[in-house]
């Protein structure tokens, strides 16, 4: 068996970079935000290196772009890579956070030798604008170590492989910290020197696990790997360091994702008629756009024109920090669209969803709203009409905790043109909202107007009087 290992040294960085046209210095910082873990070439030119404290990095390069490492996100990107590699090799292993392993012994003949396989992989990587260090080895671990140390060469020669490994330092050989310290204290500095220790002594004096690790590298002990299975849906995400404010800016990353989708569909021999595009915002709820084609479709171009049409109709409600495209519904290329195999087994939820989709398609997405209370003292903000959700949230507040409010709240306050006949309750003072620029400072009263109507009126800071609602 022969193994190919792809090590992506800065997967997240590449991923963000290829979704943006901007090329200024960028770093990835660890979860707690204290330490730089990846730095792009532009950042390295400014003296920023991996493992540097963010504090130091920022003082070296004040204009540094910063993205936070996210394990889930990395695994997702890695899976994206597994998907295309799967087109070439059947036995693929995911090695999070940044490695892929593929058995290529069986492929040599198919592609005409190791150099051809190597070339194919490099081509694809370049097209995807991703940096990966390949390594070939006779065991999974050998391939991994060679790849991760950037020592990969296009050869299937086992003795060459062992020679490369022998020169590796202990740190490069990825011994755990404890073993590494122990070996260092014995005065050993390369993997080759460790290979030379008597195996019995190694097991007794170091640990059986260390011996097993060495033997797995050398190939004298089996190292079984669990193969990866491709998912049953397509999903890709693009993340931006700087928020995208214009929908035009989203088309660039979408182009790449849609062409991936096209390839994915081709490879599956399937079409689709429904894409879900989710736009994440920094502060607001995500925007969910369901794009439906008129019939089964697989061309990136067709999807892109549909999406850009949609963008024209519906401007962005807030700057976008990331977008995710998902396709879960696949249609056989030959099968007639729309017909379920078992006929009318749709559940109620599905029926509800279909109804909403149809209404939205008829009336336009924005025409349909769902009402809900919102925790805010300002009357105009105490309720919300949001886009329709599939699951409606349960009401948490009970009636007696709610303040006394008119059922009919006017779209906006209207000047009070007469002196009311009678005053009932009041004043109730509402003051707040200074933080979002919608400051309110009012005294509310319930008053009866001359025509007998019961009005909810208020006086604002400028001493102006307004009607804000009507009681029944």
């Amino acid at each position: 068996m022969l193994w190919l290992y792809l090590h992506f040294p800065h997967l997240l960085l590449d991923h963000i970079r290829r979704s943006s046209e901007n090329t200024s210095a960028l770093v990835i910082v660890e979860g707690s935000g204290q330490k730089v873990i990846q730095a792009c070439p532009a950042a390295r030119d400014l003296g920023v290196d991996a493992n540097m404290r963010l504090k130091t990095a920022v003082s070296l390069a004040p204009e540094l772009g910063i993205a936070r490492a996210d394990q889930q996100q990395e695994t997702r990107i890695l899976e994206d890579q597994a998907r295309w590699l799967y087109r070439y090799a059947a036995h693929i292993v995911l090695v999070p956070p940044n490695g892929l392993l593929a058995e290529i012994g069986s492929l040599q003949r198919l592609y005409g030798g190791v150099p051809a396989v190597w070339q194919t992989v490099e081509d694809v990587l370049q097209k995807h604008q991703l940096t990966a260090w390949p390594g070939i080895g006779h065991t999974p671990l050998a391939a991994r170590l060679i790849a991760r140390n950037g020592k990969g060469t296009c050869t299937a020669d086992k003795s060459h492989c062992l020679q490369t490994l022998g020169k590796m330092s202990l740190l490069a050989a990825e011994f755990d910290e404890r073993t590494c310290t122990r070996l260092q204290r014995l005065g050993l500095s390369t993997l080759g020197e460790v290979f030379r220790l008597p195996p019995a002594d190694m097991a007794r004096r170091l640990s059986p696990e260390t011996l097993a690790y060495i033997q797995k590298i050398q190939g004298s002990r089996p190292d079984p790997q669990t193969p990866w299975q491709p998912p049953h849906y397509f999903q890709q995400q693009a993340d931006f360091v700087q928020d995208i404010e214009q929908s035009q800016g989203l088309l660039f990353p979408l182009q790449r994702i849609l062409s991936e989708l096209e390839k994915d569909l081709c490879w599956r021999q399937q079409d689709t008629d429904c894409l879900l595009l989710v736009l994440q915002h920094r502060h607001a709820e995500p925007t969910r756009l369901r794009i439906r084609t008129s019939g089964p479709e697989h061309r990136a171009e067709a999807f892109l024109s549909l999406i850009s049409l949609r963008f024209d109709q519906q401007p962005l409600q807030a700057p976008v920090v990331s977008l995710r495209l998902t396709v879960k519904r696949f249609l056989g290329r030959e099968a007639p669209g729309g017909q379920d195999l078992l006929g009318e087994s749709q559940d109620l939820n599905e029926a509800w969803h279909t109804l909403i989709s149809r209404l939205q398609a008829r009336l336009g997405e924005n025409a349909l709203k769902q009402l809900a209370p919102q925790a805010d003292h300002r009357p105009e903000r105490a309720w919300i009409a949001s886009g329709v959700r599939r699951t409606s949230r349960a009401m948490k507040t009970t009636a007696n905790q709610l303040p006394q409010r008119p059922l009919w709240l006017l779209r906006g306050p209207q000047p009070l043109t007469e002196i009311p006949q009678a005053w009932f309750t009041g004043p109730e003072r509402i003051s707040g909202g200074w933080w979002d620029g919608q400051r309110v400072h009012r005294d509310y009263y319930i008053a009866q107007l001359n025509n007998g109507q019961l009005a909810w009126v208020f006086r604002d800071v400028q001493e102006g009087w307004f009607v804000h609602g009507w009681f029944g």
Partner: protein
Amino acid sequence: MSEPSYAELFCFSNFTFLTGASHPHELAQRAAELGYTALAITDACSVAGIPRAWAALKESPVKLITGSWFELDDAPPDACTPRFILLARTRKGYGQLCQLITTARRRAEKGQYQLFHDDMGTHVLDDCLCLWLPPSPAEANADQILACGEWLLLLFEHRLWIAAARTLEAGEEQQLARARWLSEHLRCPITAIGEVHMHRRERQPLQDVLAALRNHTSLENAGHCLFQNGERYLRPLPVLQRLFPEPWLEESLRIAQQCTFEPGSLRYEYPPDLVPKGETPAAYLKRLTREGEQQRYPAGTPMTVQALIRKELGLISEMKYEHYFLTIHDIVAFARSRGILCQGRGSAANSAVCYCLGITEVNPAQVDLLFERFISKDRNEPPDIDVDFEHERREEVIQYIYRRYSRERAALAATVIRYRPRSAIRDVGKALGFDPALVEQLLEGIDWRDKATNWRQQILDKRLTRNPKVADQFFTLVNTLLGFPRHLSQHVGGFVISSGPLAELVPVENAAMADRTVIQWDKDDLESLGLMKVDVLALGMLTAIRKALELISQQKDQPFRMQDIPQEDRATYNMLQKGDSIGVFQVESRAQINMLPRLKPETYYDLVIEVAIVRPGPIQGDMVHPYLRRKHGLEPVAYPNEAIRSVLERTLGVPIFQEQVIKLAMVAAGFTAGEADQLRRAMAAWKSHGDMTPFREKLINGMLARGHDADFAERLYLQICGFGGYGFPESHAASFALLVYVSAWLKRHYPAAFYCALLNSQPMGFYSPSQLLQDAKRHSVIALPADINSSQWEHTLQGVDHQLRLGLRIIRGFSASTAERLCQNRPETGYRSSAELRRLAGLNQREMELLAGANAMPAFAANRHQAYWQLLGHEKPTELFAAAEDDENYELETCNQLPAPTEGQNVLADYASQGLTLQRHPLALLREQGHLQFCLSAEQLKTTKAGIPVQVAGLVTGRQRPGSASGVTFVTLEDETGNVNVVVWLETARRQRKPLLTARLLHVKGILEREGEIVHVMAGKLSDLSHLIKTLPINSRDFH
């Protein structure tokens, strides 16, 4: 209608953390402006805000009422959970309140409290008044509310009120109706309250921010966690009159009238336990002083000292401070009895009485120069004595205090942890919903030293928000939040001791540290109330001195004490004059080492000045150079008038000490004693929130009017600002200077004992063990490596020539108890094999590995690699009855595949295991290898001509950017011959940030400069050579 009036009885200050949005003094001042009759500060289960409010109201007719707000953790049967305010009616009621708070606080975690309805029955509260805050109709039904009211009525008959607020919120009418109904049913009156959370309505935004933070959310999502409006402020009387029925307002006045307790009346008796039966405190103190006198002056007390003692005792007696002095004497006597070195400092500490009582070693007969020896009667401030103890043994003293006075009577003062710029920016950012990562980035980017930093611009630049209005709000909020208390922590060593239960004087709560309790007041609060505290502080140098004295006693075979050190020793001063002071107390920093050759101390008093002069005060006031010029006779010493001469004569007409500056304000600018005292307080508080500008005009005008020149006045003002927060008084410098002299004398005459003791007292001081050991070598001390067959846990002196044998404590990760086992079980012949070592000393694998890594078993391992090989593979526990000793195999197991370590490897391994090496310095190795071809060593620099270009290289052991030197970074490089001082100007630093900030081995091209014996290199080009020794774990003391 009578004159409108009102007493506010519900008021949260910002000591109800994350709730109250105004400082106690702001509330107090506002209440006074509005003409309130009284103001109660009622923080949640706390009286922490009282002293500050009291201080602000001292001169005002507004009466301060002490109270506290509570919410119980459970409900009485069938009732709702009660919320109420307790007000202290008298001193007795105040004690009851404190006791209740203590109970609630002591059983909960730090910062929390827990109070159950049963507690209300078990605590006597008959001198407290209760204001009940009934819940809203939405929270509880009428039955539960009535049951709750009946329960309270049983506890507080005729002392219960129903509190009614007018916050103008939804549902208020029902709430008021409910209050009236309860009042009728319970036959108990209603009083008006304001539910005050802030002193002015303008604080509403901050109050909202705090509420959002308390609920761990942002303002945008806070919703109903925020109040509906900003009505919870101190409202003007006409507004209150419109809102409340007259009787309700009058009721508040009636309640206020009943509350007669006044915080200023608090006094605590020092424990009488110390005075023997039948003797008065004054007589006892006199007797102790007399006894001490006989010891101190066996040949008879000098007349001047006798007179001094008489005067002091008279003053002590007049002020009734006997117990205070006796308490400190008792603590010091305990330390003496245990052989713990200690030393008092502070104005009262340097008195003749304290010298006789053994509290200080500063002899009044010898040093009669001290400016202000004692408590001053007119300032009416409590005497201040700080006592430093050996840092390793201070805990014994603390435990003694707890034992002697019990936890009921002794507790630590609190330290109020306040919002600082970083925390304020972080929290306000959180509330405004800024991206935390961006906020962190902003924080990283702010140059805190750069006063001109325009935050608003930076916030916009960093795109935290695009809205300039939000940026303005952010700025205002951060500025207001600065200085707000966040929580109470424990003071480093300020003890409060009382004769009665402390909890009746001030509530006691838990500190973060287990078994530590703190009171709710900090040292400023205690001071403003005129309460005394005893500062029990830790000082590393005392530990080192005691250890050195012990080593010398062993050497001499007779006890050698601090008093046995000869005074004013020439050789010691000569050493200091050369700047040879690494390891010496207080004068070992780079700045001090540079100052020593300039100031050339010749006497004890010169050391007092030396200690005080390298401080922000004299430096910012530009007093250093004038003093040096006058000291060396380059400038005439002149005084504008006699009054000033009396103040400045000791320091040649240049103000150096804090006391002088204050006294100058009086004699040169005409400050009254009271104003001078205010100035002193402002200086002490300047760092946190004080403001010096009000004094500026007064000082400068006063001085000009008295004929001083404007320049001198301006400099004096700058010096006052510099003293702010770092005030260094002569009374402290005098005590410190004594330790400077003692430690310098030890270094000069017993270097081996001195360094050995310093190393045994780590961590302390300015230098790492590696730096200390290198300095020791330069003073001809021979150091030997740690060895399992020769070392103890501590470093020791061995042989007739007192060689310094490193102890096992130098090995990182090795524990004292293991080392003890190893030493106790060591055979006469020493350990012969690793197996024997493991078995006899009972060492585990980790400990064996640490020893091998330190190369500490030269007896049976050729080198550390082989030593290590021998240890591996023995991890199975030895059987209980292991093979008899003669079965043991002393043959060494060697492995031929292992290479022998090179010198470089050994050096690296030594650093990894011990942080230092006794082999050659890494720089010596690099030099030998030809890496540092054109570099001069530190030794060579001393004889190199000034002004020529040079190259140097060394390990970076320090980077400093002192606040007093504008923009200059000082880098200390260490090579095999000593230290090189490199000066990097701001411009150079800016252009070469990377090597400056990150290099561990730095190469510098620059110009050699010389000033007397001080040599430094003005840096030009910096290059990072760290790759040459990348794995060396050298710690640098970075600036932050």
